[in-house]
Structures are given as C-alpha cells and as structure tokens.
C-alpha cells in the first residue's frame, strides 16, 4: 500500500518553508518530490529599488542569519570588481578570519542540529555549549553575537585589536583541544554510526550532475572549493585544499556519515587558517576610503557587471551585480544561495531509504531556506493556495473586524 507523507513546511524535523512529499511503501521511500515555494521576500527588489549600495550590505546580511558574512561578502566582492575600489591587505586578512569564524560557528550549529535530528539531544547540548566560545569571540571582535556588520566596500569597518589577538589564539587552542572530543563523540558512537553509515548516499556522479556545492559535494569526493579554485581575499596565501572524508576515514562513501566527517574536518581547517592569518597579518589601514558618502558616489558613477563568489559554510554562494552610471541603486542584483542547488540532491539521497532517515538526510545538506511560503488550506480533500495578495486582503478584513 502506497501513501504519501508530507515533511514540512510545518514539521519538527525541518523548520523551513519547503515541503518534501514522500511516497511511502511500508517504511521504504519509493518517490520523493521537493516542493519549493515561489514566493519572494523581495530582498533583491529592495536592493534594486529602494536602498543605496551601502544600505544593501546590511540587507544582504539579513538574507540569512547564520551566514551573515558570506552574503554581504559576495555583494562587496562584485561591487569592488566593478568599481575598482582597492582593499588594503590587512582588511583582506580580517575578512578571511571573519569568514572562518563564521564557518566554525555554522558547522558546530549544524552538528548540534544533526544530533537533534537523530534524537541525540545530549550531543546537541554539548556541541552548542562548545559553540558558545566562538560566539563570545564574535561578540568581542564585532560587537554583536550574531550579526557581524563588519564588511564595507574597500575594507572592513572594525579592526582586530592587539588585545583581541591573545583571546582569538586561546579560542583556537580551546577548539583544537575540544576537536578530538567532539570527533570521538560523533564518529565513534555506535548509535550514530548505525544511523548515518550508508544512509543517504550521493554518488560522485550525481554530485557532479546536480552541481551540488560545499560540504555536500566534497563528502561525495568532488574536490570543489572556491577558496581552492578561485582564491579571493587573502586566501591565495593559505593554499586551502578541498577537504574530502578520505583524509580521516580512508574512503569516500558519500553518505551522511561522510558529511559529518567533512564538516568536522573543515572546523579543524578553519582553525589552522585563523592561526596562520593571525601570525601573518600585516599592519596598515583597514579601509581604503573611510568617507562613505564618497563610496556611494563612486558606485553611482560606475558601470559594469560582476559576479561575487564566496565559499559559505554551506557551499558556494553567488551574487550577480550590475551597476549603471547615474543609477543610485544596484541596477541588477541576483542572489543564489548554496542551499538552492543542494536541495535537488535530496531525491537521489532519499530514494530507497526509510522514513526514519528523512530528517537526518534532509539536515545533512544543512538546508537554510531564507524565503516565505504561501499558505495552503486543505479542507475536505481540496487544496486551495492563498497568495500573498489574498493574505493581505484577509488581514485587512481582520483588522477592520477588530477595530469595529
């Protein structure tokens, strides 16, 4: 007997506005359909119609709360390429450190979520307790726990001060010591191994065909990393190599376990990069043009198009930007977040698996969907989709009713 179960948009495993419709036979998944929403938050529209480029940095920061450095970073790379704004070397190093701090906190956050999806809440609490350290450092350096607000056309807004450096080094040491423990808790646990080994396999072929990005593709053995293929910022100095699971386990299967391995190894890699960056950071300016109004005017005067690429924790993030002379806003702005291409790999991963594997496999690509879904009302077996306009009308009606 076949039947369908819907995972999402309201489901404890996937608190994101996307729906995985699974056709089930007993406990086995025979068909998977991913229904992505088509509604738009209008972020790009605001960037093209309302905000000047400086305001758009903070808008890009709010595309995603967790990767709030990669989105503005992509935008800034693209605009800097068009306008030819120079970036001082020290600022490049600080940007690298920020990017890697973000990777550490994002991967640790993911590790906790993955443990929760497996029903292993103790591990979730342990990992998030360890993660507090990097959050404290982010707060120390940036002035806020989550939103960094640090990047600016032509550099960064805040310097890493001398008195911060010992604390950063201490953090690196803390994680280096803690790494073995986390790796042991995750990789040697029998129950986790039972739940993730050979589950949700994405073959190298499929990974190439679907053009997946980030840890998802690297766990399948594809050595793809923007920091390696097209180094930006100060990354050429670090010679980053794409991390594949065979470094630790000796083989590449492409399953959920491998994706855990890759993310843990990337935390270690980030620690090395931060340490090296702290050692080699040159002194000097952090902003080539401190007068922001001048930057706005320079962007207004430029014309051209460019693509900004950044290796976000979830994969390659791309922003396409076009500027037109005399046009105050961005003339065109297209954001492509890494999850957008990674969700397609759910189908090959989930086929022939069990219902129990849906949460962990879905979580294993670290989905982060920053968009809104329309409302679907199901009554007496009929589906009715309410669009944004209708919803607006309904809420006006409700307000009128309440006012009366």
């Amino acid at each position, binding site marked *: 007997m076949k*039947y*369908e*179960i*819907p995972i999402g948009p309201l*489901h*404890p*495993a996937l608190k994101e506005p996307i729906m995985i419709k699974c056709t*089930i036979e*007993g*406990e086995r998944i025979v068909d998977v359909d991913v229904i992505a929403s088509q509604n738009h938050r209008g972020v790009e529209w605001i960037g093209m119609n309302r905000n000047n480029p400086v305001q758009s940095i903070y808008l890009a920061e709010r595309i995603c709360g967790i990767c709030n450095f990669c989105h503005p970073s992509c935008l800034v790379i693209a605009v800097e390429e068009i306008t030819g704004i120079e970036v001082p070397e020290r600022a490049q190093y600080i940007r690298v450190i920020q990017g890697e701090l973000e990777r550490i906190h994002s991967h640790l956050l993911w590790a906790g979520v993955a*443990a*929760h*999806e*497996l*029903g*292993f*809440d*103790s*591990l979730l*609490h*342990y990992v998030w*307790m360890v993660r507090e350290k990097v959050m404290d450092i982010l707060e120390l350096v940036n002035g806020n726990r989550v939103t960094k607000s640090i990047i600016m056309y032509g550099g960064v807004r805040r310097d890493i001060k001398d008195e911060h450096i010992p604390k950063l080094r201490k953090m690196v040491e803390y994680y280096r010591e803690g790494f073995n423990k986390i790796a042991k808790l995750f990789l040697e*646990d029998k*129950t*986790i191994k*039972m*739940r993730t080994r050979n589950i949700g396999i994405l073959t190298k072929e499929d990974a190439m065909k679907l053009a997946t990005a980030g840890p998802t593709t690297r766990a399948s053995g594809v050595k793809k990393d923007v920091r390696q293929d097209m180094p930006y910022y100060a990354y050429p100095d670090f010679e980053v190599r794409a991390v594949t699971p065979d470094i630790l386990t000796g083989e590449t299967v492409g399953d959920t376990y491998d994706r855990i391995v890759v993310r843990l190894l990337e935390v270690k890699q980030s620690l090395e990069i931060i340490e090296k960056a702290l050692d080699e950071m040159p002194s000097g300016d952090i902003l080539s043009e401190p007068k922001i109004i001048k930057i706005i005017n320079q962007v207004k005067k430029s014309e051209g198009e460019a693509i900004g690429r950044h290796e976000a924790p979830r994969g390659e993030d791309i922003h396409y930007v076009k500027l037109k002379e005399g046009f105050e806003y961005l003339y065109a702005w297209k954001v492509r977040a890494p999850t957008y291409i990674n969700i397609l790999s759910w189908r090959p991963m989930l086929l022939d698996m*069990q*219902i*129990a*594997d*849906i*949460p962990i496999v879905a979580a294993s690509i670290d989905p982060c969907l920053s968009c809104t879904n329309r409302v679907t009302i199901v009554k007496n077996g009929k589906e009715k989709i309410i669009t944004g306009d209708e919803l607006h009308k309904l809420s006006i009606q409700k307000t009128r009713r309440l006012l009366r």
Partner: protein
Amino acid sequence: MTGEILLKTVLGGALITLFAIFFGLIFKGIDRKIVARMQMRVGPPIRQPFLDVIKLMNKETVVPENAIKWIYHASAIVCLASSAIILLYIPIAGIEPLLHGHGDIILIIYIFIISALAMVVGGFSSSSPFATVGAQREMITMASYEFPLAVVIIAIAWKLSEEIGGDVFSVYHIAQNPLWNSVGLLGFIGLLILLFAIVVVTPGELAKIPFDVAEAETEIAQGLLVEYSGRNLAMFYIADGVRTFAMASLITALFFPYNISPLLKNYISLGDFAIVTDFLFFLLKVFLIILFSVTLVRAGMARLRITQVVTTYWITITLIALFGLVLLMWDNQLDIPLPWVG
C-alpha cells in the same frame, strides 16, 4: 464477608491508582531534572509534570475531522486505566499485593500490552498519516521486545521451580524467594545477564530513546500522539509516568525484592517504622533502576531505525537472554559454589 472484600478491593484499588499516578509523575520529574543536569542545563523543577498535567487538563480537546471519535477518546482512558492496574499485582516494599494469584506475571505482561495496544488503536483512529506510521511502528516494536522479555521471565520461573517450587508464575512468590540466594556461580552470572536483558527491554517497553521509534519527534512528529491534545494527551502523559514506575517496580520485584529493615534491625530498633524504611528503600531501588535503564540510556544514545530495533531485540538481546537461561540450566548440573560464600 463479600462486602468487606469488595470494599477492600475498591478502596485499595483507588488508593494504589492515586499512589501510582503521584509517584509516576514524581519520577518523571526527577528523570527530566537528571537528564537536564547531565546535559548541563538547569532543567524544570521536579513538580513540572504536575504543572504539565494541570495545564493539559485546562486545554481544549481537539478531535480530528476524520477520526473515529469514540475509539479516539476511549483509547486514552483504556491506556491510563490499564497502566494503573498493573501496580495492583506488583508487591511494593515486600507487602502482599492487593490482587495476586496463580500466573499473574503473565497477566502483568498482557496488561502492559493492553496499554500499548490502546495507544496503537488511538493512533490508527486519529486518521493522520504520521499517527498511522507511528502505530505500525509501535506494533512492530511490541512484537520484538516481548520475546526477550518472555525469555527472561520463563528463565526465572523455571529456575524457581527447580530450586524452591511452589507457585512459580506468581510475582509475589518470586519476590519472596529471591533467586540470588539459591544459585551457584554460573547461575549468578546467568541472573546478571537476564537483568541486563530486562534493563534493555525497559526503554522499548516504555517507548524511550533509543527505542522510541513510535513517537520519534523529529521523524513523525510524536507519531501516535500527534493528533491528541488536552485531556486525552494528559491521560497518555500520566500513563507514561505510571508505566515507567510499574516497569521499574516489576524489575525490583523480580530481581531486587530485598528489604532493608531486617538488616537495620541488628543495629537499631525500628518498631513500627520498619514499614516506612522499607518503603523508602523501595523508592530508592525504583529510582536507581529508572536512572540506569531509562534516564542514562535516553540521554546517551541516538534513536534507532525500526529495522535496527527489531534486529536488536530479536537477535542480540534474545540471544543474550537465552545465554542467561542456558547458564541457569548449567548451574543445576555443574553446581559451582559462589566464591565469596565460603
């Protein structure tokens, strides 16, 4: 005369039900607090389960449109009632249980099944795909943990019939004649193995991680209970606490029926307080069993898939329990004395 028995049964039954609910919820609170401390959280206060129940009682009871209403409501009551009557058969602190007789240990296992079945029926009747998956899983889990549990109980009863005889399938009889006193070395090891088997069966019986496949929160959104709310959910919530307490009491009666008052009498005279100390000691034993078979296990493991639950119980745990049974049999033939008993 019959009136007196009736009065005793009714009054005693009501008292024991209240007692079971009270201690079931208390132990649930302690369990949550300890898990929180293990995870380095503060955790809820120990009275939290009572507050939860009061809150659920005040909430609206929603019935899904396509549910079969009378079954949907009845299964909650059946689940709570069947969990509560288990304690009528289990000796608490060495006191003779209210109801007992020939073969009541088999009856206890059946009552455990009834309360689980009530949940299954409730799940099916609520007409949600998640609840249906949960109900199927619960039935499979039930079928898989009963086998090792039966092996453990039969092993104990058989050994008892060999050593002492009498009404071996009565819990009270088993509790009065602890097997540890009458076995040799092999039997001692065999009993330890059986204890391990029943401790592993406990989380399955009570639907706790790693065997909580039927309720898996992140997979099928509480499964069986997904549609339940308000008073019905409160009843399932209480039933869960009562089942935990009953299962731990059963393990206490089977494996640790000792009382502390005979030991203490050598040092101080207790008088009428003997029964109180015994009762406190009983609560301590129940607490330790819950700590090691539920709390620690549920905090320290990931949830298994349903297929892995079945293989764990049918192959691993059943083989372990059978090995314990074989050791008990060898004990009769070889009769190696315990090294620490002269």
